[in-house]
C-alpha cells in the first residue's frame, strides 16, 4: 500500500509521459491501493497448495461415503462445485474466499472427469467440454488463481486431445502456436493492458498460465515419451528460432550495437548456434522463455526458463546416442566456443563505468 502522496506522485509521473490530459478516477485508485488486493507470489502459491490439499481430503471423503457408486451423482456434484467456485468469485472479490473457490474448482474438474468417464462418455468429448468450461470461466471470473487454472486446463485439454488420438506430430503445432501467443503476450504488455479492464485483469494469470502450458508442451517434446517423426521436428525449431532471431533484433536495439558489420555478425552467429539445436526444440524453447522473461524483467518466468534450460540440456546429452567420449568432445568444444565468445565480446559488453 502507498500513502496518498506517493500515489499522487505516481499519477503526476504518468501524466508527464502522455501527451494529453489524463482522466484519473482518483478515489478508486486510492481505494484500490488501500484494499491491497495484489497478493504476493507467496500468498498465491499458499492458496493453490492449500486448495490442492483440501481437495484431496475432500475427494477421499466423497469416496468414503460412497458417492463414486453413482456416476450421475458424481457428475452432478462436479457441476455444482464448478458453478459454486465461479459463483463465489462473482459475489465477492475478497482474497479470503480464494482457497475455498480454488478447492471447489479443482474438485469440480476431477469429479466431472471421473463421472463422465464412468458414464462412458467419449474422452475427446470430455476434453472439448473441459475446454468450453475453462473458456467460460475465463470470461466470467476475474480471480487470479482461478483464471490461471482455467488457462492450464484449456491448454492441458488440447495437449490431452493430441496425445489421446495419437496425433503426436500435432504437438509441433501446439508448441508453435503457444510460442507465438506467449511472445505476443510478453511483448505487447502495454497494448493488452490498455485494451480494456477485463483483459488487464486477465493479463497476469494468462501470462503465467501460458508459460506453464508452453513448458508442458516442451517437456512432452523433449522427453521422448511419444514417438515423434523426424520429418516434422523442424517446424517447432523453425518457429522458435525465428522468434528468437526477432528477439535478438530487439535486444540489439536495446544494447545499441553500432555498426552494420557487428549486427550481421551477431545474426549469422546466432543462427548457426541455434541451428545446431534444430533436433532438440525443447532447448531452443527454454532459451525463448529466458530471453522473453529477461526482456520484460519478469523474474518468475526467468527462473522457470533457467531451470528448464538446464533440465532440457542435460536431458539432451543424456539421451544422445553417442559414446561418452564423443559427447565429451562435443560438450568441451561448445564450452570453449562460449569462452571465446566471452572474451570476444568482453570489451563490448563491459559496463560503461569509464564514460
Amino acid at each position, binding site marked *: 500500500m502507498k500513502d496518498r502522496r506517493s500515489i499522487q506522485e505516481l499519477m503526476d509521473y504518468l501524466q508527464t509521459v502522455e501527451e494529453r490530459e489524463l482522466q484519473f478516477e482518483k478515489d478508486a485508485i486510492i481505494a484500490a491501493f488501500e484494499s491491497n488486493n495484489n497478493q504476493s507470489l507467496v*500468498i498465491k502459491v499458499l492458496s493453490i497448495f492449500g486448495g490442492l490439499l483440501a481437495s484431496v481430503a475432500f475427494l477421499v471423503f466423497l469416496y468414503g461415503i460412497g458417492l463414486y457408486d453413482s456416476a450421475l451423482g458424481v457428475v452432478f456434484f462436479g457441476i455444482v462445485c464448478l458453478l459454486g467456485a465461479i459463483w463465489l468469485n462473482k459475489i465477492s472479490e475478497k*482474497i479470503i474466499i480464494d482457497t475455498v473457490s480454488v478447492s471447489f474448482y479443482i474438485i469440480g474438474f476431477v469429479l466431472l472427469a471421473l463421472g463422465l468417464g464412468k458414464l462412458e462418455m467419449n474422452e475427446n468429448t470430455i476434453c472439448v467440454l473441459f475446454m468450453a468450461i475453462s473458456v467460460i470461466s475465463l470470461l466470467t471470473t476475474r480471480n487470479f488463481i482461478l483464471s490461471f487454472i482455467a488457462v492450464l486446463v484449456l491448454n492441458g485439454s488440447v495437449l490431452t486431445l493430441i496425445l489421446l488420438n495419437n496425433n503426436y506430430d500435432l504437438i509441433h503445432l501446439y508448441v508453435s502456436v503457444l510460442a507465438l501467443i506467449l511472445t505476443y503476450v510478453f511483448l505487447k504488455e502495454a497494448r493488452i*493492458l*490498455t485494451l480494456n479492464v477485463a483483459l488487464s485483469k486477465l493479463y497476469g494469470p494468462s501470462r503465467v498460465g501460458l508459460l506453464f502450458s508452453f513448458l508442458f508442451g516442451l517437456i512432452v517434446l523433449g522427453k521422448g515419451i511419444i514417438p515423434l517423426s523426424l520429418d516434422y521436428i523442424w517446424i517447432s525449431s523453425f518457429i522458435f528460432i525465428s522468434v528468437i532471431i526477432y528477439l535478438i533484433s530487439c535486444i540489439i536495439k536495446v544494447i545499441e550495437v553500432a555498426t552494420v558489420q557487428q549486427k550481421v555478425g551477431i545474426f549469422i552467429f546466432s543462427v548457426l548456434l541455434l541451428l545446431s539445436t534444430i533436433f532438440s526444440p525443447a532447448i531452443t524453447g527454454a532459451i525463448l522463455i529466458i530471453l522473453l522473461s529477461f526482456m520484460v524483467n519478469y523474474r518468475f518466468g526467468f527462473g522457470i526458463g533457467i531451470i528448464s534450460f538446464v533440465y532440457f540440456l542435460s536431458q539432451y546429452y543424456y539421451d544422445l546416442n553417442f559414446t561418452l567420449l564423443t559427447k565429451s568432445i562435443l560438450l568441451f568444444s561448445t564450452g570453449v566456443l562460449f569462452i571465446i565468445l566471452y572474451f570476444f565480446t568482453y570489451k563490448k559488453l563491459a559496463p560503461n563505468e569509464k564514460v
Partner: protein
Amino acid sequence: MKNIQREDIYIINRHADLTERGVDRVLKEKIYNDKDAWKKFLRLFFIILGIGFSVSGVVFFFAYNWADLHKFIKIALVEGLIISTTSVALLPKINSNVRNIILTGSAVLVGVLFALFGQIYQTGANAYDFFLAWTLFITIWVVVANYTPLWFLYLILINTTLVLYSQQVAKDWSEILVFTLLFSINAIVLFVTVALSTSKRIEPVPNWFLYSVALASTTFATIGITIGIFEEYAIASPILVSIALIVFALGIWHGLKSKSIFFLAIIPFSVIVIISALLIKVSDGEMMLLLISLFIIASITFVIKNLMNIQKKWSNER
C-alpha cells in the same frame, strides 16, 4: 519518479485512460531491463555456459573410462586442470564474478578427481566416501570464494553425504533420526547465515539461497514429524518435535522482524500439514476427512488473511 512497480501501473491503468504508447514508454523506461542489465546478463550467460559446458565435457571424458589411457596420465590431466583453473582464478585482473564461476568449476573438478581415484584403484570407494572427500576438500575453495552458488553446492554435498552415509553405513538409524539430522543441519546453516548477515558481518545473502535452505529444512521437519506420527518411534520423535518448535518459533520471529512473508507462509503451512496428519492418526473415517478438508481451508484462509494484514501494516510503516 523512482520506485515504480509493475503492479502500480496495473492498478492505476484500471482506473485511468492511459494510452498504449504511454504505458509502453513507462514499462520500457522503468520496468524492463535496460542496456546495462542486458550487458551484464549476456556476459554472465556466456561465461557460465562456457565454464559449465567445458566442465561437463571433462566429467564425460573421465566417465568414458578410456582404457588405453594410463592411469597416471588421467590423474595428471585432472590435477593439471584443477591447478590451471585455480591459478587462472588467482589472476588479479579478473572480474570477481568470473573468478567465482571459475572457482565453482574447479570445485566440480575436485569431485571428478575423487571419482577418478575411485575408478582407478577400486578402493571400494562407495558413493558415501566419495562425497565426503569431495565435500571436505573443496572447503577451502568455498570459504575463499565465498560465492553463494558455491555455498549452495557445498550444502547439497553435505546433505547428499549424510543421506548416503545413513543408507550405506549407519543402516540402523531410523528414518526419523535421518530427517532430524537433515533438518537440524539445514536449520543451523540458515540460522548462522541469517545471524551473520543481519549483524552485517557478511555481505547480504541472496534471498534465493535463504529461501531454498528454509524450504528444505521445513520440508525435512514436516516429513520427519509426519513419519513420527504414524510410526511412533519413541526416542527420536520428541527430540525432532522440540527442535522443530524452537526453529519454527525462531523462523516466525525472524520473518516478522525482517518483514519476510516467505517464512511466515511456509512455517504455518508445515504446521497445517502436521496437524492434518495428526487428525488422520486419530481416525481415518469419512467424517474425519471432511473435517480435515474444512480445517485446511479454514486454516489456510486464516493464515492468508493474517499475512495480508501484516503486509498492510508493514507498508504503512514505510
